């Protein structure tokens, strides 16, 4: 039974579209060690983490007992060495502790993250595990081969059950961790449009379009719900649950369905609720990459079916026709800069040390512009050689890409890379974490390789070097980590260094890698939101710190949280770190 199912599952993986996950062997080995052996992600929650760790480590240590039990049952006697008997007993008891804890969590505590999961299956599995371990302990204690026999039978049952249940993760989790991204978590994998018709892939419409990584993702889901718990959309009443998305894909996959996944395994609304914040991916103990699934489902719906939330259409048309999502004239981009005497590069000019990529938000939105103005003033003051592209800076294409319009994104990627390369740009500093992410991680696929810094990184560096010397203060300032900085790109320390230099930083509960989205990601800046708003939710959290100021490092976060704070009625000022730094220098 096991073998037959194993063959079926292996076939599903092999028949899937290839996943582009090259090299980086050493990083993958480190991941295996930390995430699988070390149970790092699971231990993000201490009690459930330990519960699972005990069971998992127990499994590893107890594995040889199968051989030993088989020998005994075959008549060869109990060859278990004494040290191993003691060791395995200890671990067997740990497993039992784990199982009991698991039952307590599931039956008594009943955390919300299990909503939608198949709890019955879990009970069967836990009972089987307990039985396997109890028979082992009984065999060790009483020496009766009958217990060894029972032990083996139960293991056999367990083996057969594994590939038909969510316990399949035993076999596939380690594989999934191996295949996961080792770097550039913020980079979406590009599609190719220059292939012959029959090889074109426009994201995922049916299970036949899934990549091998996506198939192994589906196999590895244990329905633990940690992703669901972390999801800002789910937390504010939307129907999106990353867990349910993966379960939906898995069910369609096992059924070998030819129907579109959206509308059959995964409700359409779910894929558009996503803000691509990556909290789900961060939380997942088996390295499932939910954002890739959701984005691929979006790509197919948008690019092939032309089906997507209507309110985003003006943005898509504006990005394509006006080169920015607000549909404002490109000639307006540099107006603020000219007034400050910032150099605007013309073709043929020598490249500056840093190309300051302003971004559409700062160019066209008054609230976001404050950050660019401050950044430019600070860079000038510190004597940094920088310039901007002005009207030749087109949208990086991030909103189109996150919406699922890979085609329009690539047109802009190619255009911007050509502009940057012709200009001889090597170093870029960007204010917007979305621009930053795209320039640093995604333009490489289109021939654009640059050293990219977020403005908070460069400003922190300048303060470190003494080129900017702000005056300290004891005013409290809370910091909101942007998803695309803190989670996708690990930029957490530098903004904090800046804030320490100019005030008294206060951490929110959900901060750093665990930050809670402002709600604008995944092109949601241009989409309607139903139910409780994510930005209001986050603004409440910020207001609860009691700090006078909420510091941010992203133009979207600025606008969303400013709106949120106003709506909540809190007496809190929302400002970019650059603005605050500039003020501390006056």
């Amino acid at each position, binding site marked *: 039974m096991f073998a037959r199912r194993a063959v079926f599952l292996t076939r599903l993986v092999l028949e899937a579209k290839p996943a582009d996950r090259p090299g980086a062997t050493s990083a993958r080995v480190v991941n295996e060690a930390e995430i699988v052996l070390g149970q790092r992600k699971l231990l993000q929650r201490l009690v459930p983490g330990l519960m699972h760790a005990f069971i998992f480590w127990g499994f590893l240590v107890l594995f040889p007992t199968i051989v030993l039990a088989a020998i005994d049952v075959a008549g060869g006697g109990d060859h278990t060495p004494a040290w191993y008997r003691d060791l395995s007993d200890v671990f067997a008891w740990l497993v039992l502790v784990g199982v009991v804890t698991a039952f307590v969590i599931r039956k008594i505590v009943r955390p919300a993250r299990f909503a939608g999961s198949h709890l019955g299956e879990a009970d069967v599995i836990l009972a089987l595990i307990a039985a396997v371990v109890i028979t082992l302990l009984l065999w060790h204690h009483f020496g009766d081969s009958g217990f060894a026999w029972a032990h083996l039978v139960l293991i056999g049952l367990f083996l057969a059950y594994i590939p038909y249940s969510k316990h399949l993760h035993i076999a596939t989790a380690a594989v999934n961790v191996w295949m996961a991204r080792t770097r550039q978590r913020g980079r979406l994998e590009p599609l190719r449009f220059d292939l012959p018709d029959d090889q074109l892939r426009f994201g995922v419409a049916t299970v036949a379009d899934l990549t091998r990584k996506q198939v192994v993702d589906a196999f590895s889901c244990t329905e633990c719900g940690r992703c669901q718990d972390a999801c800002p959309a789910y937390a504010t009443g939307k129907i999106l649950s990353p867990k349910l998305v993966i379960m939906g894909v898995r069910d369609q996959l096992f059924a070998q369905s030819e129907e579109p996944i959206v509308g059959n395994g995964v409700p359409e609304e779910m894929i558009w609720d996503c803000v691509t914040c990556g909290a789900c991916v961060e939380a997942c103990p088996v390295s499932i990459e939910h954002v890739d699934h959701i984005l691929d489902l979006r790509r197919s719906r948008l690019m092939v079916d032309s089906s997507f939330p209507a309110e985003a259409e003006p*943005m898509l048309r504006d990005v394509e026709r006006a080169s920015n999502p*607000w549909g404002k004239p490109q000639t307006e981009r540099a107006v603020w800069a000219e007034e400050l005497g910032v150099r605007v590069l013309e073709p043929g000019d020598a490249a500056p040390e840093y190309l300051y990529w302003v971004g559409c938000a700062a160019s*066209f939105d008054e*609230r976001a512009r404050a950050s660019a103005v401050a950044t430019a003033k600070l860079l000038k003051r510190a004597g940094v050689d920088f310039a901007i592209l002005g009207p030749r800076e087109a949208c990086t294409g991030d909103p189109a890409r996150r919406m699922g319009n890979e085609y329009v994104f690539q047109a802009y990627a190619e255009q911007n890379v050509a502009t940057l390369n012709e200009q001889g740009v090597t170093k870029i500093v960007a204010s917007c974490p979305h621009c930053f992410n795209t320039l640093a991680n995604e333009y490489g696929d289109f021939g654009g390789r640059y050293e990219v810094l977020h403005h908070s990184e460069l400003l922190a560096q300048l303060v470190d070097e003494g080129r900017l010397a702000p005056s300290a203060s004891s005013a409290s300032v809370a910091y909101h980590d942007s998803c695309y900085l803190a989670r996708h790109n690990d930029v957490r320390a530098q903004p904090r260094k800046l804030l320490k230099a100019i005030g008294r930083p206060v951490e929110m509960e959900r901060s750093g890698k665990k930050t809670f989205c402002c709600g604008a990601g995944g092109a949601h800046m*241009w989409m*309607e939101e139903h139910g409780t708003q994510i930005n209001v939710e986050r603004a409440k959290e910020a207001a609860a710190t009691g700090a006078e100021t909420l510091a941010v490092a992203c133009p979207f976060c600025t606008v969303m949280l400013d709106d949120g704070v*106003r709506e909540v009625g809190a007496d809190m000022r929302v400002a970019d770190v650059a603005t605050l730094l500039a003020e501390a220098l006056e």
Partner: protein
Amino acid sequence: MILVFVDADELSAQAVGFARGLGDVRAVTFEGAYQPLAWAKALAAQEAEAIVAAGSDRGNELLAHVAALLDVPFAANVTAVDGDTVTRVRWGGSLLEEARLHGEPRILTVAPHTHPAADIGDVETLPAPDDGSPKVIASVEESSGGVSLRDAKVVVSGGRGVGSAEGFAIIEELAGLLGGAVGCSRVVTSAGWRPHADQVGQTGTKISADLYIACGISGATQHIAGAKGAKKILAINTDPEAPILASADYAVIGDLHEVVPAISAELKRVRG
């Protein structure tokens, strides 16, 4: 002699005023169902050094037909004439073109609201026999009551500052007096004070009104995106730093709960 086609509307009165600046005016009109080509033939058959009409839908259409019949150029939406040089409007008013109008008679329509109205005076009715070309065969009443947001010439819009669903009564009053539609910002629809159909913005309706009056609206980028199609924007806000002021042509710094009723009262007063 300047031949002016007139309808019974203010734009025609403006066109007559404009034409009087060019010479003696002969104002004409037609009776019966509108039949563009037949009416144009009648106009084209008249002797005139110039044929003028208002830059309305009908005026532009008629004179385009006349120009085609006579195979001469036609300048639409003119704001000024100097000899054979005309200044005309492009890009919905954002750009002016100076051009030389060759050929006779000179055919042009007058850009709306660029010239004061004049007393039309005597109007001749010309005969225009049915020539079998397309004409109006029926008139269908619009099913929707009230002015649609998308087509409205004036939109009076309320934002967070209005404070409540009931607060919109003063907005509705002003909109009614101006024959316009009521709009709102996203905060208002989220709060449930107005339906989504009233929402002006990137994810709501993009308006193309002649005037947008934004009351208590701070002016988020997405909202402005829906309003930027308006030719003129008047902002009423207590905050002189509100982002909307950067996009407004006119502003009143004050509380909309006082300002809006005051405007309505003044309108009623001057209308008598």
